Each structure stands twice: as C-alpha cells, then as structure tokens.
C-alpha cells in the first residue's frame, strides 16, 4: 500500500488563547507553556461533513483520481454531524463515488487504524484504491466550561487516498481497556423504561497525568516496534510525525527515542489537538512545505481513548507538490 494523494481542510475561524482568556479563567502563558498551543481552528460556517468532503476532494485531486476510482471509503471521527449515517456515507455522493462506505472508531488513533484496514483490503485484492477521511469537530464535543480540556482541542480534516504499492514498510496497532483515563459520555437521551445512568455530563474527561504516561510510553514502544519491523531505528527515519495532543508529550517522546528535533515537525501551535485528523493534517503540512522528498521514510504514531495506539513506517515516493507554503508559517520544530 502507498499514499497516492493527500488533502486537508480547516475551518476559517482561528480562536486564539487571548480570546479564550475572555471566556475562561486561563491565560495565554499557561496554555502555551503547558500545551504548546497558541490558537486552534473552530468550525463556524463549516460542518464536519463539509470539511471531510473538502479534504477528500483535495486528496483525490492530488492522487490524480476521481471518486469513481474508489473501492472503499473509510471515515474516522469522534462525532460526525449525525450519529448516523457515517461521514464516509455522507461524502460519497459529493465525490461521485460508488463504493462501500464505513466509519471506523479508534479515537485519536483512528487514522493509523484506518491505514491498517486499508492495507488489509488492498493486500487481499478486495480494493485497489481506498479513501481515508479523518474529520473532527471536537469543538462540539468538548465542555467549554472546563478550562483544563477545552483549550486543547480544535477542528479540521485530513484525507489520503491509498492504493497498491510498497510504501507501507510496517504497521502496528494496540488497544487496552482504560475508559477512566480519557472518555466522552454518550449523547444518549433518557428512556422512560430505563433508569438513567452515567454522570449525565457532556465533554471530554481526562486524567492528564495518566494520559501523558500512556501517550509517551505507548508512542515510544509502538515506534520502536514498527521501526524494528522495518529493519531500522526510529531515529533513522527522515521524519517522525506524532499525534499532536500536547507539545510536552511530543518533546518527551522525542527525547526518549533520541530523535533529532529537526526531524520531528509539529503544528500543534496553530491547530491544537484535532484527534484522528492530527496526523494526516501534519503530514499534509510537511508535504506542502517541500521538505518531504521522494525516498524519505516517515514514522507516524498516534494514541488515544480506548486506550488505543499505533505506529507505522512509510517510504514516501510522491514528488514535491507544485503548491508550496513556507514551513516557517506552518511547522514548528521543538
């Protein structure tokens, strides 16, 4: 399997830390030093579906394909505009695709899980071209009265078209039950025949220290295992792209694995934590920076609620795109 095309869509509205100071008992300094986030994109006129469709169209165009070339669409999202249909189904008509559509839920690890699923379909011969769309509207999931969590999350969508090829060198996934570390309760409504259960509160609930420990240890372990399977060390990869959850996690993983900071780009300062969209959106920024060259190896890693985690090594063979953006505007190297 290899990546044939990549696209990204962001809401136009950027909400800065200074704006959050007006809403919450927080400060720009606190948010920056503890998370690395300066601003995040929040949907205003957009929807999760419109972001998904926009990103998908760009990915198809970048791959030189149309919707008709797709054999499967996989969507990942914490919460679409509807509980059902899936976002994969919602974008199908807009892409003029005619193929099975399904959403896959592995929280922030969704994109890596979707790559593995797509690889299984392609390797088995059941599909030739698969579209993966990771579209997130976490601004509608988070509790905006909880200053500990709402400052972290942002909206956006990343999409890739994958097809036959030798780009994927290795991939590993993992999961272990751990609801209390990180969860968001169901929006289920009360039923007259069922006693109400659950805390009834809305938002993203997180045990910060435990999530930090899980994130750092699982990322290091998954990246080392995936790299070993590909016959290399993580520090030898040209680029290491980690799920953009918190700059402190990124720095800790980098130090643990001995990765050169110049090889570990981030964009969390601009976009915040966008759950499953964060890895494809970071890959998109790297691709459009012109820094990513054919022949480079990429190590991708993510972790999330479940708890889930996963990593993969990819050999990139796409040429540098025509549309480039100065990496000083989009990427940060901590």
């Amino acid at each position, binding site marked *: 399997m290899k990546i044939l095309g990549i696209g990204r869509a962001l809401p136009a509205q950027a909400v800065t830390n200074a704006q959050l100071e007006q809403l919450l008992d927080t400060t720009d300094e606190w948010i920056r030093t503890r998370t690395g986030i300066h601003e995040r994109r929040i949907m205003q006129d957009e929807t999760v579906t419109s972001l998904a469709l926009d990103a998908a169209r760009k990915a198809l165009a970048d791959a030189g394909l149309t919707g008709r070339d797709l054999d499967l669409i996989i969507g990942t999202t914490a919460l679409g505009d509807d509980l059902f249909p899936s976002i994969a189904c919602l974008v199908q008509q807009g892409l003029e695709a005619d193929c099975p559509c399904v959403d896959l839920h592995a929280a922030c690890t969704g994109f890596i899980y979707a790559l593995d699923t797509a690889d299984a379909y392609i390797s088995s011969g059941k599909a030739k071209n698969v579209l993966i769309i990771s579209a997130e509207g976490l601004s509608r999931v988070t509790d905006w009265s909880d200053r500990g969590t709402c400052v972290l999350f942002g909206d956006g969508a990343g999409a890739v078209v994958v097809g036959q090829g030798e780009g994927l060198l290795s991939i590993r996934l993992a999961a272990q039950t751990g609801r209390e570390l990180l969860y968001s309760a169901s929006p289920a409504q009360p039923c007259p025949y069922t006693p109400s259960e659950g805390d009834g509160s809305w938002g993203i609930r997180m045990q910060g220290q435990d999530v930090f*420990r899980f994130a750092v240890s699982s990322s290091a372990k998954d990246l080392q295992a995936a790299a070993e399977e590909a016959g290399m060390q993580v520090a030898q990869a040209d680029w290491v792209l980690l799920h953009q959850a918190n700059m402190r996690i990124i720095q800790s993983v980098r130090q643990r694995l001995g990765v050169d900071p110049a090889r570990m780009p981030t964009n969390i300062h601009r976009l915040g934590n966008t759950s499953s969209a964060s890895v494809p959106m970071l890959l998109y920024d790297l691709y459009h920076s012109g820094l990513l060259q054919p022949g480079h190896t990429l190590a991708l890693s993510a972790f999330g609620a479940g708890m889930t985690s996963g990593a993969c090594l990819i050999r990139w063979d796409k040429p540098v795109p025509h549309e480039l953006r100065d990496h000083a505007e989009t990427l940060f190297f901590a």
Partner: protein
Amino acid sequence: MDVMNKIATALAERAGSAADAITPETKFQELNLDSLDVAELIMNLEDTFSVTIDMSTLDGTVGSLVKQVEEAGK
C-alpha cells in the same frame, strides 16, 4: 547513591535548584513542577529503578515518592 539522593538530584536538575535543598517534606509545587513534569519524572524514575509507581498514592511530597520507589523495589 540512595533513592532519596537520586530523586533529589533528578528533581533539582529539572527544577533548576540545588539537590541538597530538597527534603522529604518538599512539595513538587514548591519546585515549580507542574503535573506533567511530575508525570515525566516518575516515568524516568520507573525506568531508572525498574519499578512501577502508583501515582494515586502520592501526596505531593518528595517523601511520598521516595517511599513508593523504595517499597516497589523490595
């Protein structure tokens, strides 16, 4: 070097303070360490001492961390 000294040295390095100023009664907060600093420090200590530390039993003092590491190492 015993456990207290090793932990005091690690804390001092992270906090930018003197190791001999850190006592079992010292609170992590007094060292300007936030919750993620403490979490990362604990991960490093777990690797150093080959133990697993239960963060829920810590009371915010250096002494409670030393005690956990010593007991986990038995």
